[in-house]
């Protein structure tokens, strides 16, 4: 096991617009090869009060990009005298991703709310394309979600519908993708501000063929009547 292998976020990341804002969601697994380096990472990172990003791919690359963009956006906000728009944030991410495409390996979803355009999601995959989308998915776990979103996504959802969709989707991807796991984190951004939510693994629904979580065998032995294992 190579513990010096680059940290990669196998990852499932999602960004969804709803009527009034956006919901960003992600899993929490950071892996170094087969070893889970961090099982509770926070892949949803703040750029400004009203713009957040979901990071996937190389952990180092995505952190550096987000640090630079945060710095540029801060300067831009001071010069402009008002909060930056989501579009500007996404464009700055795109310029870094595109101009350094030979060195970087990171897929980013930019999401936020501004007073001109409302809630917006921009997907910026590996080569530095920028695409404004009503919803975006990324990371290794997203492969399992394309069909799901084709069926489950609809225009004009409420905030709660959108968040539930995101949690369900991340949870489904975690079930199938070995490189995604841990907890589900969501960030909701709208005109009222930002709300962070956290869904531990036991709060998530069990999917097909998933087993109930078992505690240590010792608990079973010392219990009054040992529970037989469910198969």
């Amino acid at each position: 096991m190579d513990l010096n292998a680059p940290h990669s976020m196998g990852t499932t990341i999602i960004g969804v617009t709803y009527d009034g804002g956006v919901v960003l969601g992600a899993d929490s697994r950071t892996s170094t090869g087969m070893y889970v380096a961090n099982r509770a990472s926070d892949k949803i990172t703040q750029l400004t009060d009203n713009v957040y990003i979901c990071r996937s791919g190389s952990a180092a690359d995505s952190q550096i990009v987000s640090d630079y963009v945060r710095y540029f956006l801060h300067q831009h906000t001071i010069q402009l005298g008002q909060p930056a728009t989501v579009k500007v944030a996404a464009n700055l991410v795109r310029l870094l991703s595109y101009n350094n495409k030979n060195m970087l390996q990171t897929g980013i979803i930019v999401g936020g709310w501004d007073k001109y355009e409302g809630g917006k999601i921009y997907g910026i995959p590996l080569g530095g394309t920028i695409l404004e989308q009503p919803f975006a998915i990324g990371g290794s776990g997203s492969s399992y979600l394309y069909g799901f979103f084709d069926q489950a996504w609809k225009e004009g959802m409420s905030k709660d519908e959108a968040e539930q969709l995101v949690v369900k989707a991340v949870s489904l991807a975690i079930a199938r993708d070995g490189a995604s796991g841990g907890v589900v984190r969501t960030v909701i951004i709208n005109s009222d501000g930002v709300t962070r939510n956290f869904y531990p693994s036991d709060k998530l629904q069990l999917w097909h063929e998933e087993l109930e979580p078992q505690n240590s065998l010792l608990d079973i032995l010392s219990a009054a009547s040992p529970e037989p294992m469910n198969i």
Partner: protein
Amino acid sequence: MASIGTGYDLSVTTFSPDGRVFQIEYAAKAVDNSGTVIGIKCKDGIVMGVEKLITSKMMLPGSNRRIHSVHRHSGMAVAGLAADGRQIVARAKAEAANYESTYGEAIPIKELTERVASYVHLCTLYWWLRPFGCGVILGGYDRDGPQLYMIEPSGISYRYFGAAIGKGKQAAKTEIEKLKLSEMTCREGVLEIAKIIYRVHDEAKDKAFELEMSWVCDESKRRHEKVPEELLVEAKAAAVAALEEMDAD
């Protein structure tokens, strides 16, 4: 202006004892000697007009433009030394293009003005540069609505409802103050500006002039353009008529 610099006016890096930089004030005089330039902010956009004094009968109408588009959504009307004005416009275009390639959206008018004003001011800081001998009226329409700014040779810029520079600026400002701009549409504004320019034009001192006008408004789809030909003709006719009516009293 009565005062002479006498020794304190040789360089733009010299202050006078009473705290003035004479070179900048002299640059402003270059603007005051040029044809009148007016800009107004109507409820649905900006209208700008220039009294383009014609120096030669052989000059082709429509040449020697004094109003330039800086970006899709904004334009500049220049008064003073025309060559200096060209530099300022070029810089404004470059700033607008650069902002758009970095930030992915059209430059807000306020930001554009600050950048251009900074540049004009820059040229008042070094002894090896001279101040620009022109004033600029910048009008644009961005997501915060229509905005009008004026940039002086000193590098000062303010936001205005109505602004005038050049020979007839005092008379023009008086006329503009009479207008109810917040209720006026740009179509009406075009007629009013034409009337004002014709009125402040001094027949005795200056010979012929050509009226150049532009607007950026809802009707022009928020793009900075020359005022359409038929409207310009209508405006000129109305202005001439208003002048005759005034003379007839």
